[in-house]
């Protein structure tokens, strides 16, 4: 990664350095927006999530430290929680099944895409694609839509008592595939 490290920028943000916030914004806007859009399936809502995440970042509503792991993971956790808040407010609306193939698609690469991030995306996407359809579906409902246990049961037709086991199984397979794909990429 070129330029200052995330942690350096974050520390400058704590000193109210607007340029540092802008640098973090440029670095993460696309990832955070894409993730928010994946979760909310709504461009306006996704933008609101991005805005709220950066307002929280600027105002240090929650603070990051290196013990919390990678900065990007911390930022993404904040993004997911913010998106879940927005989704809960929307929960009275009928849910629309998300079909990835129908989503807005961006093929043009921008120079700001970090190589590391691109490789990671490729690795994760390949691994997810190797999952069985019903395993992808349960991860979609559980992780990206953040549904309740009961709704996941309803949407998948699985008994309540079976849902957690299926999530666990899907994630176990995913982990294996990520490991395999990662091994291929590195070997």
């Amino acid at each position, binding site marked *: 990664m070129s330029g200052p490290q995330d942690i350096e920028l974050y520390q400058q943000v704590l000193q*109210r350095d*607007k340029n540092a*916030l802008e640098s973090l*914004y*440029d670095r993460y*806007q*696309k*990832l955070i*927006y*894409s*993730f928010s859009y*994946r979760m909310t399936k*709504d*461009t*306006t*809502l996704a*933008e*609101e999530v*991005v*805005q*709220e995440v*950066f*307002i929280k970042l*600027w*105002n*240090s509503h929650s603070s990051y430290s290196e013990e919390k792991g*990678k900065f990007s993971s911390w930022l993404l*956790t904040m*993004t997911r*929680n913010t998106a*879940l808040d927005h989704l*809960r*407010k*929307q929960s009275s609306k009928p849910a629309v099944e998300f079909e*990835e193939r129908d*989503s807005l*698609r*961006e093929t*043009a690469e921008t120079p700001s*895409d970090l190589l590391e*991030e691109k490789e*990671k*995306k490729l*690795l*994760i996407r390949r691994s997810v694609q190797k999952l069985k359809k019903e395993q992808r579906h349960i*991860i979609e409902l*559980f*992780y*990206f839509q*953040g*549904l*309740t*246990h*009961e709704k996941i*049961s309803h949407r998948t037709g699985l008994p309540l*008592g079976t849902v*957690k086991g299926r999530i*666990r199984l899907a*994630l176990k397979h995913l982990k294996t595939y*990520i490991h395999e794909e990662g091994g291929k990429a590195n070997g």
Partner: protein
Amino acid sequence: MANHGADCDLIIDYFNGHLSREEKAVFEDHLENCAECRAELAEWNGLIEDLPYDSEPVTPPEGMKERVLSAVFAEEEPKQHSASAEPTLIGNAKTNSSSPSKRSSAKWVLPAAAALLLSLGGNAFLYNELQQQSTELTQSQETVDELLQYVTLSPTGESDENPTASASIVRTGSQVNVVINASSLGPLANDEVYQVWLIEGESPKRAGTFIASESGAGAVVFTLDEFNSEQWNQIAISHEPDAQSETPEGEVILASEL
């Protein structure tokens, strides 16, 4: 809500934030004694390292950066007018402070605002100007559209929605427009509307009526014959039973001094 036995089954709703405060406390107590749930939760939290990257890359909408950054930095703009009058209509209206620890109340819901401005035959130039000016409000007095005042409205109640709104008072030629952008508004039923009020002394004057989008965003542009900054001492938004109220009948949800 799943409730068919062991506390372990609460983990999905805990992870996705669906538990009530009481249920959350129960589960957190349980976590202290259940290594299996702790391990599972750690694993799920670890997914953030991987799963977000499965999102199809999407190009953010045009102008998002400007909108987001101006909303972020608008937080710390100093209040432009010291309060000249005590709030009269809304006893518990909190004056918006620029304290950095305060939650955002300046959200630009510009897609909605832009659509509205355009649909009203308003001008897109105003919209662009507003974006640019929002971080340097007090200084920008020499543009075609002149921003007379910008305030963020603070929630007056403790609703779950935590609504936010900003009001820009803009001189456009001989007219003065009040532009309201609001977000995180609660749902409306039947004929209910959100009503903006400008308050002079103890007399509220209607200053625009709007409804919220499905995502809780709302915007309205209201034209005043004239604007005298001394005249108005408060701006407020209330939740009205219909669009006919001549004085606030519903709950005031947001307010700011002017």
